[in-house]
């Protein structure tokens, strides 16, 4: 398998909302992380990064988010907690960059560890 070709595909996927690349690559660019630094953040070998980036972007509802994160983590032998942390951070950074602080709070609320109970309130 040509790594360069798959890496190019992952880069192109950054411009398509369906892919995890559309969250993680703009975040990496904003944080000035190269491939090795991003892979280190995620806890995966750098050669596995393109395949990870081409996974489908996790759903936004809390239960769906965790299910998708766990599936991706299991398939790539990485920590789901670590993956979730990076994806949450990336979504928040991107939402703030789009000038929507309200959107960032929404993402953080949507990515909580458990589904909200009736007594829960949004984070300030």
């Amino acid at each position, binding site marked *: 398998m040509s790594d360069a070709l798959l890496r190019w595909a992952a*880069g192109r996927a950054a411009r398509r909302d369906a892919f995890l690349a559309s969250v993680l*690559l703009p975040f990496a660019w904003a944080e000035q992380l190269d491939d090795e630094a991003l892979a280190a953040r995620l806890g995966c070998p750098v050669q596995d990064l393109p395949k990870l980036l*081409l*996974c*489908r972007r996790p759903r936004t509802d809390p239960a769906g988010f965790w299910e998708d994160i766990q599936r991706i983590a299991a398939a790539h032998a990485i920590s789901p907690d670590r993956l979730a942390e990076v994806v949450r951070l990336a979504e928040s950074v991107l939402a703030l960059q789009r000038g929507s602080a309200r959107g960032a709070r929404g993402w953080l609320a949507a990515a909580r560890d458990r589904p909200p109970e009736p007594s829960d309130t949004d984070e300030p």
Partner: protein
Amino acid sequence: MAPPQHESTPAAPHAASTAPLDRAAQRELHARLLAGDTNATSELAHTFLHWLSERLARRFRRADPHLLDSIAIDCVLRLCEQPARYDPARGSLDHYLLMDAEGDVRNALNSQARRAARVVSLETVELRTPAGNIQQGADEPEDENLARLVAEVAGSDPRERAVLELMLDGERRTRPYVEVLGLHGLPPDEQRREVKRWKDRLKKRLRRLRRELLHDE
């Protein structure tokens, strides 16, 4: 006039053993794509991208490999985003991808051939001399010559036109190219590589155009 650069070889009989997955595995992967399985998109790309690129390279031997890879990537990503476009009842997944990609390649190559055919009519546009100055045509103002040059080399793709105009303006910084190509989401080193790919492709066409014009003199 230079002949079209592509050469389409007769389609070889499709054998299931040549595809990356057997039919059952293809159906299973497609079902997972339809179900929104988070890993299915990655598996599709990992399984089919290299195979598709090689098949296109074999079928269109004289086409630009960069163009073929770009089209292969687009087809695979498109199927990931819209798996319902493929109907398993009409054929195998690998056959669908190959037909989709071949159609895009033929469209791209036909556009290039039409542009090359129009080059013959250019009699007053001259390319940059070794001294680096565009010479004016005998009867047309420089702006019109430049517009025709851009049209002939970049065709109808607005991004190619924008990149070529920057090149003709002598722009050497990466940032303006990133802006016109919409590459903001990529890391800096990937931006530079992508910009270089676009510029190299256009430089190749400019050199070809120059050879054709000089040959016709």
